[in-house]
């Protein structure tokens, strides 16, 4: 068995303890709890407003709910949590843990919103088992299962994770008050503008550079729905690389942590991310596909 370096053995429990403390702070944040309640409330509303005759629809659009409520709330919450130690900056500088380790601990705490997002999509899948969607619906059975799982994972838990990590990045790098709100508006507006190629151009895959890409149009007036082109599996890899890049950029704030390893890690993440983005745009179904009309949705 490979022996760990003594310093690693000494530091590991400490990082886990710090991450636990930060995770506990996230869980106890009233805004975060409220956001989770609202996200699940919407899901309950969608489920309860359906019936046997009119089963739940637009299922691939649902993950916008956890991404908006949990992900964006995590952005603001984590930015505040990251900056909250600044009042005691001098004491923190004297503490044994470095800023980079505190950043990593905060990043690990972002697994809490990711777990909430994961639970949300598992509940969505459970709802569709309870009340089976229309056969024309873009869901399992109309495309490879792995694509559906990748769409759900990328747009809910990974989006929630990314929101929290972006908050850590904002807290580390942007010092003016309200920076999180400004970033929130910029990211929502940029992301929504980035979706334009989905329907407006003949190259729907050009929307996939955005950190949250839509894969379904929502129901049209003729009862059909458009599934936007792009390989969701590689898109999932791309957004995970974005998350990793955000963590590295946040750690980079600590001058002592700017090692060669970190540079190599950033370069590797960038290369893998760009490769995944390219593959998500060029493999699989790159064209939009329109479903058959769902009879009860025809207006």
């Amino acid at each position: 068995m490979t022996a760990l370096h003594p310093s690693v053995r000494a530091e590991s429990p400490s990082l886990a303890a710090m991450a636990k403390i930060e995770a506990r702070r996230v869980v106890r944040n009233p805004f975060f709890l409220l956001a989770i309640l609202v996200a699940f409330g919407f899901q309950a509303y969608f489920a309860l407003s359906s019936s046997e005759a009119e089963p739940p629809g637009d299922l691939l659009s649902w993950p916008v709910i956890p991404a908006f409520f949990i992900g964006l709330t995590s952005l603001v919450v984590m930015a505040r949590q990251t900056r909250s130690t600044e009042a005691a900056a001098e004491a923190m500088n004297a503490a044994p843990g470095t800023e980079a380790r505190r950043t990593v601990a905060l990043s690990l705490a972002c697994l809490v919103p990711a777990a909430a997002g994961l639970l949300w999509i598992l509940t969505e899948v459970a709802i569709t088992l309870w009340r089976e969607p229309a056969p024309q619906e873009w869901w399992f059975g109309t495309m490879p299962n792995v694509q559906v799982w990748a769409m759900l994972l990328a747009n809910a838990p990974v989006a929630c994770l990314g929101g929290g990590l972006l908050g850590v990045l904002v807290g580390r790098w942007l010092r003016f008050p309200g920076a999180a709100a400004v970033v929130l508006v910029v990211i929502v507006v940029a992301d929504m503008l980035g979706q334009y190629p989905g329907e407006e151009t003949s190259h729907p895959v050009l929307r996939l550079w955005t950190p949250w890409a839509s894969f379904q149009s929502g129901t049209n007036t003729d009862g059909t729905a458009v599934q936007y082109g792009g390989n969701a599996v590689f898109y999932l890899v791309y957004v995970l690389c974005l998350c990793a890049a955000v963590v590295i950029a946040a750690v980079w704030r600590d001058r002592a942590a700017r090692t060669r390893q970190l540079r190599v890690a950033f370069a590797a993440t960038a290369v893998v991310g760009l490769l995944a983005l390219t593959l998500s745009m060029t493999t699989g179904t790159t064209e939009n596909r329109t479903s058959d009309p769902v009879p009860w949705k025809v207006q």
Partner: protein
Amino acid sequence: MRLWYARRGIPWIPLLVCCALALLAAAVGRRWPDTLPVLLPGALACCAAAAGFVFDEAAAPVVSVTPRGAGWRRTTRLCVTVVPLVVWLAVVALLPAASEPDRVGWSTAGVACLLVAAGTAGLSARREVSAPGSSIAGLVCGLVLLPMVVGPIAGWAPLLPQGPFPNWLVVLWMGVGGLGATLGAAALRPGLHRPAGRLTARA
């Protein structure tokens, strides 16, 4: 004296950053009108966020015992809401005529959002929250963008439509504005809201 206080007491950097972003969105929307359905709510969110910062007080423990009093400071700060308000009205005025915007509807919605943001911030200041701006800005931005992002999937009627605002929607926004004005009036009441047993500052 009020100008002197406003110049030094207001956190101008976040306020002006938000205003600048709103103007930038308006300029981009003017150049590419197709982007207005997204940019206009974004600009509104920025202006409302800017209004949330006017009650941030960096030296709250010091100024709370100064002879001018909390009422004087709060009215001075509330007047600064004029800055994001003027920016918003400029954004609405800059909208390209070709897109046929409902300027009255958008102005009403903007004034309502600004009043709610400033009123909530004022109430927080009255309750001795020294810097409510960041939280309020985040909350207001989320609420303004909510109908645009979640509305289509939830099946809501658009609260910020690109076409003419129906009468019920104008009334709704006027109601929101009334709520904001009430919050602002409550915030301007003299004195500070402190739990029993603590010293009260001079109003």
